[in-house]
């Protein structure tokens, strides 16, 4: 039996001594399954990068890319000497950290809770309802947020005052310091149901026998959640965490832009809003591209760092 196994293994798995060509031949089926799609990625994702050259030019739409003047790092210099841009970086980081952490925790919590519900109908109904806000555009959603948080007529302030927690209504959207919280919470409200789907799918892969043995060991519900459910979806959690941290600089434009107004612009001016105001609206494509390159560079660096750290901690990394 062992010999047979090894023969079979030898067919497709690789030895150190194999040359790369031998490896390719051995795994040709896998390559057939993957290479065509990798070519897609190359074509549709990597080829357009040549457009990055716009960042080093003073792009004039009429002249096209070949006719526009080359200005080297001028665009980058301009961005980094603009105090509004630096302010934007700070706002982006603060908003992002708060947003990522809250959406993470809430999605996992929701998934865990749903997983514990045994009444199937209730579970299905809750799940379906919880992801409904995902489909509402941010325009409609922000309208609701403004209404609910209004100091004069919003329900949140009414409840807070009635409970005696605050004396006068708080203008949540009128002061910069509340902005990050509003972004994070409204994001949770809108997306938690949808985000939880991933973890729920991962949980279906848990072998019920593990639960059974945990019960036999005397583990209570909470103990089971912590020792069985959570560790089982740990790979998924780690994957999501790394991927999302790579997106640290990308808070999303629509939500922030819609929530911003003259009173809170100090806090709400994120990088995307900055690009919109200073680059897109005025057609300064070069400037926008330059900032975009900055964002991408940070993101790729971040994800490499996160991956490295993750591997150092427990050997798990996505690449």
């Amino acid at each position: 039996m062992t010999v047979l196994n090894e023969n079979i293994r030898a067919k497709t798995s690789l030895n150190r001594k194999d040359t790369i060509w031998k490896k390719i031949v051995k795994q040709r089926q896998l390559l057939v399954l993957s290479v065509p799609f990798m070519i897609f990625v190359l074509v549709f994702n990597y080829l357009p990068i040549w457009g990055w050259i716009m960042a080093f030019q003073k792009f004039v739409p009429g002249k096209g890319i070949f006719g526009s003047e080359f200005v080297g790092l001028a665009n980058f210099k301009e961005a980094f000497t603009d105090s509004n841009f630096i302010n934007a970086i700070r706002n982006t980081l603060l908003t992002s950290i708060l947003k990522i952490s809250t959406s993470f925790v809430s999605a996992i919590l929701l998934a865990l809770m749903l997983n514990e519900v045994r009444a199937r109908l209730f579970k299905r109904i809750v799940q379906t309802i919880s992801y409904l806000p995902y489909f509402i555009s941010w325009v409609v959603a922000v309208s609701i947020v403004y209404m609910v948080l209004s100091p004069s007529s919003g329900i949140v302030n009414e409840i807070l005052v009635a409970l005696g927690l605050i004396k006068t209504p708080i203008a949540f959207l009128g002061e910069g310091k509340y902005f990050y919280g509003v972004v994070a919470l409204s994001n949770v409200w809108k997306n938690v149901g949808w985000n939880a789907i991933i973890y729920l799918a991962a949980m279906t892969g848990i072998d019920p026998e593990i639960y059974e043995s945990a019960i036999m060991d005397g583990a209570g519900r909470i103990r089971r959640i912590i020792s069985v459910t959570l560790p089982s979806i740990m790979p998924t959690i780690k994957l999501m965490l790394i991927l999302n941290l790579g997106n640290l600089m990308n808070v999303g434009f629509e939500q922030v832009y819609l929530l911003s107004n003259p009173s809170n612009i100090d806090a709400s001016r994120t990088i995307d809003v900055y690009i919109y105001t200073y680059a897109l609206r005025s057609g300064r494509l070069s400037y926008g591209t330059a900032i975009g390159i900055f964002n991408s560079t940070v993101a790729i660096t971040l994800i490499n760092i996160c991956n490295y750290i993750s591997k150092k901690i427990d050997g798990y990394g996505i690449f």
Partner: protein
Amino acid sequence: MEKKNGHGMLSKIGYKRMTVEDLFLDIFIYISLLFLCVVTLYPFINTIAYSFNDAIDSVRGGIYLWPRQFTLRNYEKILVGNKAISQALFISVSRTVIGGFTGVFATLCVAYVLSRRDFVFRKVFTPFLVFTMYFSGGLIPTFILMRDLRLINTFWVYILPTMVGAYNIMFMRSYIEGIPDSFTEAAKIDGASEYRILFTIIFPLSLPVVATITLFVAVQQWNAWFDTMIYNGMNPKLTTLQYELQKLLTSALSIAASDSDAVLASGDSQRAAVTPMSIRTAMTVISVTPILFVYPFLQKYFIRGLTLGGVKG
């Protein structure tokens, strides 16, 4: 509440401890979930209410759970007499189905290959794929590429560029990696090809994730309109439902003024105006309703646990 199979063997003390804890936990969970439902259902009901409310009256605000001045006018404006809608619907459904299938197929293949720790190019392909999530060449270079590939003004521009999605692939790969090797060992011993392993073993075992990815891809295809606008705007035969809806919204945003003014002059309730808000809410309801019917259908694939029969031992 059901009890699990094994509990009969437990000591009495253990059982009691679980009941109290069970109870508290259940109460906490049910209340939290109920609260969540209220908070997340409200905006949707609110949107529906607005969509059935007279547009001008809606401006006053104060609509919460049901319309104050019921009207079908907002939907009429969108659906009735709009010749483009039925063709757009056909295209939208087509791209959702075709895009869904191709997307899931591509994701499955690549995810499986990348899940194999012994894959020769694993350390190359994976970052190659993952990095695509964090950069983009920009709108104009992408457009020029599509032009040069002759994809502009075709149906395939909806399908091909987004077929291979890094995020989905990573997620599926993670799941596949969690499938114990024992399942595939037997097949390998029998000398099965990779294709067989993928489609007869991995695929059925990954149904929950496949269902999830299908949902993600389908929703993305269904909601897309920006690509229509850029690539196929000139071709009425290839526009999608979302695009047509956006067109109406853009139009409502621009004519809002004269419309209401003139309508008031007539003093005729038959001629109700529309506002951007009323179009937007009606649009949301029209777009979301099909999804609500599809998801429960997919939910049944979220079955707990792996099918064990016939493989172990």
